[in-house]
Every structure is written in C-alpha cells, then in structure tokens.
C-alpha cells in the first residue's frame, strides 16, 4: 500500500513540473512574440518615416525642378539681361561670308555696319549675348 502511495506521489510531482515548464515556455514565447511584434512596429515606423522623407525629397525635387525651369525661361533671361545687366541690343552687327582665295577657306567675320533704318522690331531684340561676344 505504501509503495503504491509513493509511486502516485512521484507521478504527481512530475506532472506539476511539466506544467511549470510549459507555463514558462509559453510565457517566454509570448514575451518573445510580443517583443518581436514591438520590434516589428518599431521597424514599420522607421520605414514609414524613411518613406515619408523620400516622399518629401521627391516633392522638394519637383519644386526645385519647377524653380530651375523658371530660371531658364527665355523671357526671364531677356528681362534680366536688359533690366539688371543693362545689356543693349546689338543691331549693328551682321555676319558676312568672305572667301579668301589665298587661304582657300571660308571665314566668318563680324562687321559693323551702320543701320540707320531701324524699325520698331529692331529696337526690341532679346538675344544679343552671342552677338556681343562676336563684336
């Protein structure tokens, strides 16, 4: 009788440890899963922030691209040249082709000619920088 009591008692002790270990394992697993989830959320937030920054940079790029295009506007360059730099029209420049038989090549020369009969359209001449360079 006493031996049978002993065996039952042994069996009960084993069962209780199993419960404890199971509980511990479940707790550890739950804690791990919870930590992983939290870490996942943290990473998601980081990714979200990074994507937001990328989006913001793209938007900034678009704005700058627009601004860059505005700076390259022919109308703006013309206005700047006239109003800020004081550039004047170079109406007295013309290009002629001369053939030099001794050299045998064709040259371009910028020759100043008088242009007394300037029309209204002659007065407003926006694209002059190259002409100034030639002069």
């Amino acid at each position, binding site marked *: 009788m006493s031996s049978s*009591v002993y065996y039952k008692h042994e069996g*009960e002790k084993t069962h209780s440890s199993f*419960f404890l270990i199971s509980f511990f394992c479940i707790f550890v697993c739950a804690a791990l899963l919870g930590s992983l989830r939290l870490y996942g959320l943290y990473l998601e937030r980081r*990714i*979200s*922030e990074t*994507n*937001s920054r*990328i*989006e913001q940079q*793209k*938007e900034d790029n*678009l*704005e700058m*691209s*627009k*601004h*860059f*295009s*505005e700076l*390259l*506007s*022919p*109308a703006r360059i*013309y206005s700047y040249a006239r109003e800020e730099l004081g550039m004047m029209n*170079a109406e007295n420049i*013309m*290009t002629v082709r001369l053939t030099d038989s001794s050299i045998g090549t064709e040259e371009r020369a910028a020759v100043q*000619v008088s*242009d007394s009969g300037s*029309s*209204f*359209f*002659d007065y*407003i*001449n*926006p*694209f*002059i920088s*190259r*002409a100034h360079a*030639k002069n």
Partner: protein
Amino acid sequence: MPKIKRNIEAAGRSRSRSVWLAVYLMFLALAAGTAWVQLNPNTRIVEQSQKQYWATVAVSSSRGRIEDRNGISLAVSVPATSFFIDPKFWSPDSAGVLTPIFGAETAKKFAKPLNGRFHWVARNLSTPQAEALAREKVPGLYTLTEKTRVYPHGSLASHVLGFCDIDGNGLSGIELAWNHILFSPQRTRLITRDLSGRAVDSMGGKSGIGKDTAGSIKLTLDSRIQQIVEWRLAEGAKAVQAEWASGVCVDPYTGEIIALASYPALDLGNRKSFADERTIRNNVVGRVFEPGSIFKPVSMAIALEVGATSPAAKYQCKGSVRVADKIIHDNNNQAHGIETLTQVLMNSCNVGMSTMAMKVQRHQAYGLIKQFGFGEKTNVEIAGEEAGLVQSPESWLGTVTANIFIGQGIAVTPLQQIMAISSIANGGMLMKPYIVDEARDSDGVLLHKGSRRVRYQVMSKQTADFVRNAMKMVVSDGGGMQAASKRTTIAGKTGTAQIASSGKYVKGQYVASFVGFWPADKPRYAMLINIGEPKGRRYYGSQLAAPVFKAIVEDVVQITQNK
C-alpha cells in the same frame, strides 16, 4: 490517519488541477474567440468602423514631364495642398474662416449642417495660401497633399502643351494627345482619423506602393525660338488689332516643328480664359483659311511638274484676264507687261498664274495638290488638327482651277502650307511634321522616337531649285522686300487673302501672310506667319506679316549663328 491526510492532499491537488484547467480553457476560449473575430469579422461591423475611422479619397498623382529639345521643362507636376471637411468634427459656425481665402460663396456652402464624412473645400492651393489656413487648425478642416500641373514659363507654347483638368487628365494639345504616356492613375489616399478627429494620411508614407507610372515627353520645340516667335507675333498682331495670328517654324529637312505659336495666347494659369473659343484654338493646326498668294509657289511647282510651263516661259499681263465666264484681276488692275516665270512670282501676278493654270488638267492639279498634303491631316501629334478643304475635281468648273492657282477656293491649315513650302526648300520632299522627339516610360525606357519621314517626292530637285530661287528673288527684288535682312538671305512669298463667309468674300476682312525660309541657299528653317483680320488700312502680307517674319529671323539668326 495517514490515509486521511493523504486523501486531503489528493483532493487539494485535484482542485488545483481543475482551477488551472479552467484558466487554460478560459484563455483558450478567449484566444479562439479573438482569432475568430479577427479572421472572420462581421462585414456590417467592418463597414461601420471603416466609415467611422477611414475615408478613401482619390487624389491626383504626379503627371509626366514635358520638355523642349534642350531639356528645359515646359510642364511639371508639383505638390499642392487641398482642403476637405469632416462634418463630424466640423462646426458650421467656423465657416467664417473660409471666407478670406475661398470667398463668401464657399463659406456659405459650409455654414450649414453637412451629411457624410468627406467634403472637398478647395483643391490644389498654392503653398502660402494653404499654410495660412492650415495654421488656423480649425476642427474638422483638414489638408491633403496632391499634385498640380504647372507650366514654369507661363503661357509659352501654351497651345502646343494644352492643359489638364483638376484630376490630371489631359484636355488639349500634347497633354491630351499624349495622355496615355503622361497620365499616372489617381492614387488612393486612405485617410484615417484619430480620436480627436484629426486626419492622418496613412498612405503618405508608403509611396512606393503607389508608384507613379507617368512617362515623359521631349518635344522638338526650341523654347528660345518659341519665345521669339510668340513675342514677335503678339507684337505684330496687337499693332493692327488682329483677331488672330499664327506662326509656325519647322526644319524643312526633317519636319521637326521648332516653334508653334498662336495668338491670342492662352493663359494656362487662368482657367476662366479656357472658355474663350478664340483663345483656346490652336490656329496653326485648328484653323483653315484661304492661303492667297502664298500658295503660288506651290501652284508654280505643280505647273512645272506637269509641263504646263517651263523656266523659260513668258507671260503677258495686262492687269486682267478672262477665264471662262469671269475676269481675274491683278491687284489694282496693275499691268505687269511681259514677265518671265520668276517675275510672275516676284510680282505675285494673278494674270500670269491664271494663264498658267489654264494649261493644267484639273485632275492632275487635284492629284498634285493632294500629294502636297492639302485636304488631309498631317497627323502631327497635337490634338485638334483640321484637314482643310480641297474640292473634288469634278466641281472644278470655269475659273476654279485658276482661282486655286492664286490661292482662292482652297482651305488649308498653316501647318499644311509650311510643309508644302518646306518641300520647295529641301529639294522636293514633302516631310511629315512631328513635334514629339521622344516619349519615355516612368523607368526611362524609350517608347517612341520621332524621326524624319518623307511622305512623297512631290517635285523634282530642278523644280524645287527653280521655285526656291524665284522665292529668293521675291524677297530681294519683288513684293517681299520688307522681309529682306542684312543678316541672312531670305526666300519667301507674301500673301493677302480675303476671308470668305457664306460663299462670299467679306469686305474688309483679310489674312495677311508671309511664308519663307532661310538661309535661302541652304535653308535651316522654314516659317509661316499669318495675321488674321487686322483692323485699319494696312492689311497686306508685305505690310504686316513680312516685317514680323524679318524680325523673327534676325532674332533667331543671332542665337543660332554658330551652329
């Protein structure tokens, strides 16, 4: 006694196990219930919660870029701020804050109780305006970032570029014709609300998912030349209070459109101006007109090609000539006497051209006119192109052939006319015009490449050379001297056509034109200038269009002389 003790312990252990088991089962049931609710939610509850916390809004996405041949952006999409109201958190008493920016009418609309959870207030506001209102932090009034289409150079090339609606769909011009490349489908923004009702743009940080699929377009336009043509054309048209004007410049050897301008200009920043049909029309491709004398180089080429005349031919002009049952007059009945073929063009002699026309069979003339591209669309990549009008040869009775040879009784678009003249400039090849140089997808892969295409060899090189020299003489010694420039040699032809309405020419309404190319010996550019319905005494092409042509040429020569 020990037996009794043992039984008590055993009972205690049994109770302990039962408690644990109950706790286990309870957690298991909770877990199963949670899993069930999560995996198989009630759709009605889901819908209700979604309505309560989320709103799905379609917002415009970034549209593709349009740039000129030098890579300068002509149309880009930039971020803009839109405002919406969530009636749950909105108090109609707050409507007053909307008045300064959106006006009293909009404020009145939101000054009463609203249904639903989402109402647009205004879309695509500029940043300063949006920031001013967003700083107010009005409960129930929230912002959303969208993309809006902007044209950095204002109205430059407005008729070519066209415009879009508020959702980024192209409505005219390149924006419409190339919408399939430029358009990126609307992105869905999931608006989530927090406890205080503030909107959170939850898709904002996940732009990679909704990647823009818009491609890009590179045009053959040169924005500098485009600007020159627009300025000069507007000056010329305003000076005579013209109803409309057009200017188109092409490369005669490739068919590339270098500049395309239409007057009145379209202000892309002012959507109210879109309601004006006169402004919105692209006169280069969407307007047909009788060409008048600028058609004569084409007529002469046809006559030479069919053998109805020759470079050595001579014509006698007495100021008028009877053709069938009508008399065709020269300008002011001026008699030019004996003329060579070149002089017929130099004097823009109607009598000479009519005499020439009488020797051309109408079916031959019709076939060649069609081969020059008249009466059918050029299929340039711009929306809204007209085909013009060439009557079938069966109806060419009496003076019709002669009339057509002097540029009457035929309706053309400026683009058709300049392409026909380009064929004279380039040695006889009718080119297909094109304005899109490249179309690429969002990854930069080339989808379309515009290229030089010869439609027909419409005349021999000898004929082209002869007519080209004749046009050169028109400018140096003939009726187009107002276009002559010291900076380059210009070949061209003036034209003054009356405007027909209801089968009759309207007195006092004209189209003044000048068509030409430069340098005359090896043309780089061909250009047509039309000034329609000018007011005042001056209406001749030589008086109005030729000076504009000359001014443009001289400006263009300065910026391209080293090329």
